[in-house]
């Protein structure tokens, strides 16, 4: 048996089409959804990623406004820039491109975003509301994972979900989303560290295994249950031993695991292409909420 490949590119295109419809409706009411962003410095990865966001905004009809700020900006000055986006009525969602330079406190900066515009879902109020089961914004990656499972027909209710990652950006918000007694959730969730003792005994229980540790071949076939759904959110830049070509791979031993799993996300082409799209979903949702429906 060979696993079904969960195609993030295809789903992403599908969701963007739906978004165009929602944006059209808002525009007929005289509202153009706006995404504001802050990019500090010129980290090449960050610059590329912000470029992807701009392109996607263009595609679905969301206005985009990125403030490009110098590397050596003071925290005070940065907070003032966030305030200006908070007050801008044409901006419905705000992202801060991470990582920030070391002299800036991410904790303080993220808490400055107006919670109703916090489309990355990093503000403590959003994190808290989400954990308590109240309406809140979730980070794009966890929405992407949930959306992929749902759109490929997987019912999470009462399933064993094991997440290998306990970070604020992935593991915790994903647990927060999937543990609630809601549609598309209601799972039993286990959070493991990569160093959890006897990790394989945890992962082998999983109906859905999510991994994000950035270690190639970290999840091997013996670590998964026959018929599991495997979501790989790892990204590792490696050199192919034979051809010496460099390429991106995930955390899962894809070739072997796909023989045993029921479904699996590839890397690249899995969760990755969904990320920017889910940020736009949040932005359009924010605009709809701010418009009162």
């Amino acid at each position: 048996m060979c696993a079904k490949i969960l195609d993030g590119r295809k789903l992403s295109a599908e969701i963007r089409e739906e978004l165009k419809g929602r944006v059209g409706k808002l525009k007929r009411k005289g509202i153009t959804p706006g995404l504001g962003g802050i990019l500090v410095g010129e980290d090449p990865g960050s610059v590329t990623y912000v470029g992807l966001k701009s392109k996607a905004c263009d595609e679905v009809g969301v206005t985009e406004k990125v403030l490009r700020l110098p590397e050596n900006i003071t925290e005070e000055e940065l907070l003032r820039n966030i305030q200006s986006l908070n007050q801008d009525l044409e901006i419905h969602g705000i992202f801060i491109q991470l990582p920030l330079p070391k002299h800036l406190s991410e904790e303080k900066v993220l808490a400055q975003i107006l919670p109703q515009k916090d489309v990355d879902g990093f503000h403590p109020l959003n994190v808290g509301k989400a954990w308590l089961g109240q309406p809140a914004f979730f980070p794009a990656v966890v929405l992407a994972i949930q959306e992929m499972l749902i759109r490929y027909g997987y019912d999470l209710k009462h399933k064993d979900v094991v997440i290998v990652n306990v970070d604020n950006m992935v593991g915790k918000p994903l647990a927060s989303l999937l543990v609630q007694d809601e549609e598309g959730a209601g799972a039993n969730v286990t959070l493991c560290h990569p160093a959890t003792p006897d990790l394989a005994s945890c992962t082998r229980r999983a109906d859905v295994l999510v991994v994000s540790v950035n270690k190639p071949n970290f999840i091997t076939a013996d670590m998964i249950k026959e018929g599991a759904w495997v979501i790989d959110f790892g990204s590792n830049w490696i050199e192919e031993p034979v051809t010496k070509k460099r390429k991106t791979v995930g955390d899962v031993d894809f070739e072997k695991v796909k023989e045993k799993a029921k479904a699996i996300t590839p890397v690249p082409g899995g969760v990755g292409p969904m990320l920017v799209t889910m940020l736009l979903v949040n932005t359009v949702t924010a605009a709809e909420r701010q418009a009162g429906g």
Partner: protein
Amino acid sequence: MPAEIIDGRKIAEEIREGLKGRVAKLEERKMTPGLAVILVGEDPASLSYICMIEREGEACGVYIQVIKLSSDIKQEQLEGKIEELNQDANFHGIILQLPLPKHLNALSAESKISPDKDVDGTNPISTGKLLLGEETFFPSTPYGVQQLLIRSGHDPTGKRVVICGRSNIVGKPLAAILMQKKVGANATVTICHTGTKDLASVTREADILIAAMGRLKSVTADMVKEGAVVVDVGINPVKDPETGKTKIVGDVDLDAVNERAAAITPVPGGTGPVTSVMLMENTVKAAELAEGV
């Protein structure tokens, strides 16, 4: 061999002794830690809990004032009272006793408690900070469970913890505490609930099993791994058929589990006594922070 009984009263006494020293230091600065307890209406269970808090306050040297509000109070009046207490320097902690009468929105009222005085950690901002691993007040029941484990020699670090029950006052905050990469935490945490299929196969994985489903005898011997530590957070009132008196029993079938577990918390006398002392600990901490010590 019967399990070790973890004596919550003894551990509470230990914590109380430590607190008295800290209160004495504050008294030297002419400061008495103060806790405002808001009670709306006259729910009998709330009244008996408040009685316990008042006794605990007296034992620790924390000033407790119960603010009784009539059951037909309006939301704005309740929130106005909270705002007033936020400004009142006599109180370092504020708790809102639940349940509230049906016409009141608890979450909205809790959101008004200043995070500096939110000693039961119920403001969603506090919840968010808790999950993110930032400095905040832990809700007293799960905080007490963590202390019970540590002080009875069953540190959760590196252990498999299974939490049965995903309530906002016990299950979720306890999971949030124990999953952090911190001293006395850093466990592999699973959150499951009464709807879980084959719950026993999940709970048998636990080194530490937390029963917090609020169902009498819902944790039976077959659900417990030999040598596990079992913490019973259940509070179920049961009428004794012979005497007609009501007594409190937990979620764990104590007699049966006793033979398999290595250690177990009794009900009453387990997590209960520690809960009220942790509320005082948080109030004293809030007073210390306000005083800058």
